[in-house]
């Protein structure tokens, strides 16, 4: 090792304002408890990929490139049945439609960033990340450290998902299904959902969305999930505005 005569300073890119570091740490801290559930979910999807007949290389490629559990699960039976590629693509688009809503929520916070960074941030922002971010920063107004907070959520989330998924790909059938590893993911979601259900309107939205998701579960392309989000949002809004006002608005256009 050469002897340094001058003190080594970190590269300029690594020197961040203190609030950025604090918000990065806060993001990591807020997201950490969910990582176990995220990893367990990745495990379920990893197992499903190899069990459906993908090779290890294909399954690894899929988890790295696609990074969308519900779309992957929807695509697997189609791939196994040799459906046309455009059918698999269209299915994934429809399954992912709720992410369009999420991107509309999250994107205005970061409109100032270069497009490559926006693309990457959007690409990696899943359900739980959006929920946790919106809980911390409900307003679009610029605030110091927003990006650091988002990255503090995104990077561990991505890592936990990939670790779980890769473990599932290599363990394959070694994990018995009756252990219910996916249930850990469900429990993690409940923990994020509880603080979001703070008022009557949100509670109503959650109840309507749950009921719709169950009753419309049989719809193709996981459209029940999208219908649940839309009906849930509408019900929450209806409660927020009050039924009377809502009725007036529609009867007197």
């Amino acid at each position: 090792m050469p002897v340094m005569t001058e003190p080594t300073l970190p590269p300029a890119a690594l020197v961040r304002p203190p609030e950025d570091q604090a918000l990065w740490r806060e993001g990591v801290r807020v997201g950490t408890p969910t990582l176990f559930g995220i990893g367990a979910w990745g495990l379920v999807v990893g197992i499903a990929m190899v069990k459906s007949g993908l090779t290890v290389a294909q399954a690894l490629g899929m988890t790295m490139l696609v990074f969308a559990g519900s779309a992957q699960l929807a695509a697997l039976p189609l791939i196994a049945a040799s459906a046309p590629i455009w059918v698999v693509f269209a299915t994934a688009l429809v399954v992912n439609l709720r992410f369009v809503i999420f991107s509309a929520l999250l994107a205005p916070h970061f409109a100032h960033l270069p497009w490559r960074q926006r693309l990457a941030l959007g690409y990696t922002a899943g359900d739980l990340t959006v929920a946790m971010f919106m809980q911390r920063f409900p307003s679009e107004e610029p605030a110091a450290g927003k990006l650091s907070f988002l990255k503090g959520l995104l990077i561990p989330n991505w890592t936990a998902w990939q670790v779980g998924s890769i473990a599932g790909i290599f363990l394959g059938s070694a994990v018995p299904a009756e252990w219910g590893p996916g249930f850990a993911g469900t429990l993690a979601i409940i923990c994020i959902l509880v603080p979001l259900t703070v008022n009557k309107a949100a509670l109503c939205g959650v109840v309507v969305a749950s009921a719709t998701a169950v009753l419309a579960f049989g719809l193709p392309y996981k459209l029940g999930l999208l219908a649940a989000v839309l009906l849930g949002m509408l019900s929450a809004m209806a409660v927020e505005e009050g039924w009377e006002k809502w009725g007036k608005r529609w009867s007197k256009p």
Partner: protein
Amino acid sequence: MGQAVEQTMSDLEIWITIGALGVATAITRSSFWLIGHHITIPKRVQEMLRYAPACALAAIIAPDLLMEGPKVLQFDTVNLKLASAVAATVYYLLRRNMLEMILFGMIVFTGLRICLS
């Protein structure tokens, strides 16, 4: 298109499909990130969108908790996941610790599953 039903995708076709799925993720997740500044969302719709994350999370877990298999609602029989989830939610409301809650829920679920099977 007149192909044999038994035929499976070639390795290349599967890789093309995987690439297409990645594009599907990018199109949906990054949509407003890339073209959002060209679109003005009405205020009322914006207000409504605030409820989207909670509704989506509820819609993702509801089938796991309330359904067994593709269609059957299990309100009449013991539903291990629902019972464990309720217990874990109560635990979370009391302790506010997510990791403990998940472990607690998994232990209850596993305990019930072993005892009742």
